[in-house]
């Protein structure tokens, strides 16, 4: 999953950069909806009462709308809300939803354990389960409530009281919302406990029959797995929760005057070899997104509970990625290695000027909690042009450089770090701790070397908040592939509970839209048709991004009619059709279709923008701006739908 950069809420609402801000579009839509409503209302009224009388009827409805919204009584709204909630509770809808949830959790656990990345599966499972059940439940109760009242004629006793139509609609929406919120809270707490319990585990280290731990030499050629750098021996842990970890002994060679390893608990021996000290320490490999802390004392090993779950990571992506070819000229794309999938660009290895430069902004110490080491996560592709050895890893070189602010290019000094080299780990996310203080040089704006020493990444390199990361491939004849989202800094993690809450707030927002849809549709449709319409809207809403991709004028293979013609006449998508009148007519009709689909995707709420389950599943932080934008979208739709429901209920006869 790639967390795309997201605009700030104020920019999104009132910005004018890429088209008008959301608020202006909303105002435009309100005006359009009012005009359309008046026109449509007049048409219906003219049909019922004749064109002359229709003006009077429409004017009356509009004139009544003001008092109906200004003079609403909280007590009446509360009474209707409470009745709606009570109805759902006493009809046992809530109970059934909750039982299904409980049963799913009870038995779901059987199928989840043993997965490659249990946290993802657990979170995905509870998020999907909650989302599905909550949305289904509120859809059912909101779709049936009003039509049932009209069918059973209980609405007679309500509508003959001084109850305003606005109160009937609003009361229902609020009642179901309160009920759904309660159930969602309960499900959220239970889900969190379920996931926490399911993921909590520890392992034993396998021992021989005499009780000794048998470590074998690291031998990738026969075992086929890649061990960590400097690993000398290895063994495996017991199989728990469906997986094992490798336990390795790593030789950590340090200068005599260098500080010892941080985690001395895991050091089992140390010896001096000339000017160096060799620490032999235990390391547990990452499996399924977590590891365990291991400590050693008096010949016994002790493994902690799982570590690495429940993260709310905040990735700091580069704003821009620029590739340079072997001659050092900037290129938009990297070197092509003939891969069909052009996602990654490649840089060639050896002594060439080929490199990739990642430009980061807003790179400040605050975002990393003033840490001494900054985690950099990399997912690099490797393309080998030499045959034979596929076990030796390709080496990566990283270099940091300051980026002068605009207008400061002539005066500001530039810092450049020395090359940090390490082996790349293919097919996996690699985490590198970059020290905050790096050895490097300072250059004057004219390129003259001023000095060298240890410099601070934040205070010196990125004094203006901008920094450049240069990635090179060190090994000759090899290629390293990367895309903008492949390398990112991990800013300080946010609180997990808050991120989890935000994930559930996303479900809450979806729930509010579904309730408004259900109540609003049920004012003019029967219960089954309301359900159908709501389901269609939800499906359309979840896939509206995908659907709008098809609904573009120059889509390959044409619109529905052209596609059908191509299917029947066996013409492939690329083949041009003969330029006849028939083709032109067909294309025109397709354009109308595409226009219709586009306008529908624009009208239905985009549920994928309110769905944060992927963020939770992959352990990324949901930014506040994202949540606020989702809340604005929800608010706008709910307001629109409540008004739609009000006008349609106001203008219909409740008895018939």
């Amino acid at each position, binding site marked *: 999953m790639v967390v795309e950069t997201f605009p700030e809420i104020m920019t999104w609402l009132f910005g004018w950069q890429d088209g008008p801000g959301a608020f202006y579009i909303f105002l435009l839509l309100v005006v359009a909806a009012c005009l359309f409503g008046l026109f449509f209302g007049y048409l219906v009224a003219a049909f019922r009462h004749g064109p002359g009388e229709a003006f009077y009827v429409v004017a009356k409805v509009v004139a009544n709308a003001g008092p109906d919204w200004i003079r609403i009584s909280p007590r009446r709204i509360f009474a209707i809300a409470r009745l709606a909630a009570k109805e759902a509770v006493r009809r046992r809808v809530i109970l059934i939803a909750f039982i299904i949830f409980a049963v799913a959790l009870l038995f779901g656990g059987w199928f989840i354990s043993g997965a490659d990345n249990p946290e993802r599966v657990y979170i995905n499972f509870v998020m999907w389960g909650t989302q599905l059940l909550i949305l289904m439940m509120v859809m059912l109760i909101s779709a049936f409530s009003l039509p049932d009242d009209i069918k059973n004629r209980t609405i007679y006793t309500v*509508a003959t009281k*001084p109850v305003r139509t606005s109160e009937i609609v609003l009361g229902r929406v609020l009642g179901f919302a309160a009920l759904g919120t309660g159930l969602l809270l309960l499900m959220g707490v239970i889900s969190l406990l379920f996931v926490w319990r399911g993921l909590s585990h520890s392992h034993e280290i396998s021992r021989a029959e005499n009780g000794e731990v048998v470590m074998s030499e690291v031998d990738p050629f026969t075992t086929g797995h890649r061990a960590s750098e400097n690993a000398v021996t290895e063994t495996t842990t017991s199989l728990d929760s469906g997986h094992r970890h490798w336990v390795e002994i790593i030789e950590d060679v340090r200068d005599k005057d260098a500080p010892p390893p941080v985690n001395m608990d895991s050091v089992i021996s140390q010896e001096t070899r000339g000017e160096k000290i060799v620490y032999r320490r235990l390391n547990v490999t990452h499996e399924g997104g977590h590891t365990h802390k291991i400590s050693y004392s008096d010949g016994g090993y002790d493994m902690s509970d799982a570590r690495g779950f429940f993260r709310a990571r905040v990735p700091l992506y580069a704003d821009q990625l620029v590739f340079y070819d072997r001659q050092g000229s900037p290129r938009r794309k990297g070197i092509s290695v003939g891969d069909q999938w052009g996602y990654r660009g490649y840089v060639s290895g050896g002594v060439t000027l080929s490199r990739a430069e990642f430009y980061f902004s807003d790179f400040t110490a605050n975002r990393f909690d003033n840490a001494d080491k900054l985690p950099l996560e990399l997912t690099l592709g490797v393309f080998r042009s030499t045959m034979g050895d596929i076990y030796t890893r390709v080496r990566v070189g990283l270099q940091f450089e300051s980026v002068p602010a605009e207008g400061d290019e002539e005066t500001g000094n530039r810092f450049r770090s020395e090359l940090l080299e390490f082996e790349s780990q293919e097919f996996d996310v690699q985490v590198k701790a970059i020290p905050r203080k790096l050895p490097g040089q300072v250059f004057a704006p004219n390129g003259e070397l001023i000095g060298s020493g240890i410099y601070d990444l934040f205070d010196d390199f990125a004094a203006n908040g901008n920094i450049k990361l240069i990635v090179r491939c060190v090994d000759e004849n090899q290629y390293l592939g990367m895309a903008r989202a492949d390398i990112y800094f991990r800013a300080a993690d946010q609180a997990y509970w808050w991120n989890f809450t935000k994930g559930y707030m996303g479900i809450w927002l979806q729930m509010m839209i579904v309730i408004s849809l259900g109540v609003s549709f049920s004012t003019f449709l029967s219960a089954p048709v309301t359900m159908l319409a709501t389901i269609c809207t939800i499906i359309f809403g979840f896939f509206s991004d995908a659907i709008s991709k098809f609904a573009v004028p120059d889509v390959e293979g044409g619109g529905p009619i052209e596609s059908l013609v191509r299917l029947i006449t066996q013409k492939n998508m690329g083949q041009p059709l003969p330029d006849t009148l028939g083709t032109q007519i067909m294309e025109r009709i397709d354009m109308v279709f595409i226009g219709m689909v586009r306008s529908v995707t624009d009208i239905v709420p985009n549920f994928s923008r309110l769905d944060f389950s992927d963020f939770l599943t992959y352990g990324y932080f949901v930014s506040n701006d994202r949540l606020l934008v989702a809340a604005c979208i929800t608010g706008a739709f709910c307001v629109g739908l409540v008004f739609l429901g009000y006008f349609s209920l106001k203008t219909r006869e409740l008895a018939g």
Partner: protein
Amino acid sequence: MTEAAAAEQTGDRLVQTNPDYDPDVIIETQNLTKVYRDFWGRQKVRALKALDLEVRKGEIFGLLGPNGSGKSTTIKLLLGLLFPTSGRALVFGKDSTETTKNERIGYLPEESYLYKFLTAEETLDFYGRLFDMPSDVRQQRIDSLIEKVGLTWAKRRQLKEYSKGMTRRIGLAQALINDPDLVLLDEPTSGLDPLGTREMKDMILELKSQNKTVVMCSHLLADVQDVCDRIAILYQGELKELGAVDDLLQVSDETSVRARGLPQEAHEEIAQVIRKHGGDVVAIENPRTTLEELFLNIVRESEERPGRRATSEDREQGS
């Protein structure tokens, strides 16, 4: 205090703006017509044809007619549950589609359409809240109404457990929760046993004594005759007859004399007197009581003296 002043006093809720408003006219319909149409706007039924009515303050007005004659349609039009096709309906001088007029109206629908999952107390509490009644006033009203309709023993039971008669009672209680000035009753006695029917009729008369206006529709003629001051007879949506019950039922060319303790011989003498004055003797006989009277007497007696009631057969056996 006049009606107009009372309307003023309710504050911003029901402000009378109609200059022609006569506070003594509670309901007024002018040329009220209702045509039911299908989805495509084609005419299905003409349920009400140009109805002109006026119901005055303090009277009990009955709408009579066979099934499908437009009685319920009239009531629904008055309540704003239906919109008139043409003409208009005014209640308290306001258009029937206005929400504010409902503050002074109580309505008991044909089958007490209530929420079955609520208890009697919750039902009245809910409807009380719809009138925006403060909590203490509401609680007081609920207690007195539940007692009045005799459901104190069952006030905490859900309505789905109620018998038809009990549902009817709680239906009436909800119609009276706001102490309305106008009560609309749709078939108030349907589904009630004779005892319940009598209680309902007593209740209606009690409302009249409190100077409230009652409009009821029914096809049970005896009930209408017992309580109504004026009636309108509808047939196929048209008004066929309108007037005071006493005037309408009076047979002006016949005379009846009721006396107690008259010996059989006197009958012949009375017949002679009638003939002497040129009248025709239609019948001189002992009047019969109604079955309702008989039934109510038995029930009343049984309540006073529990146990098996002495019947005429018992008396014969005893002798």
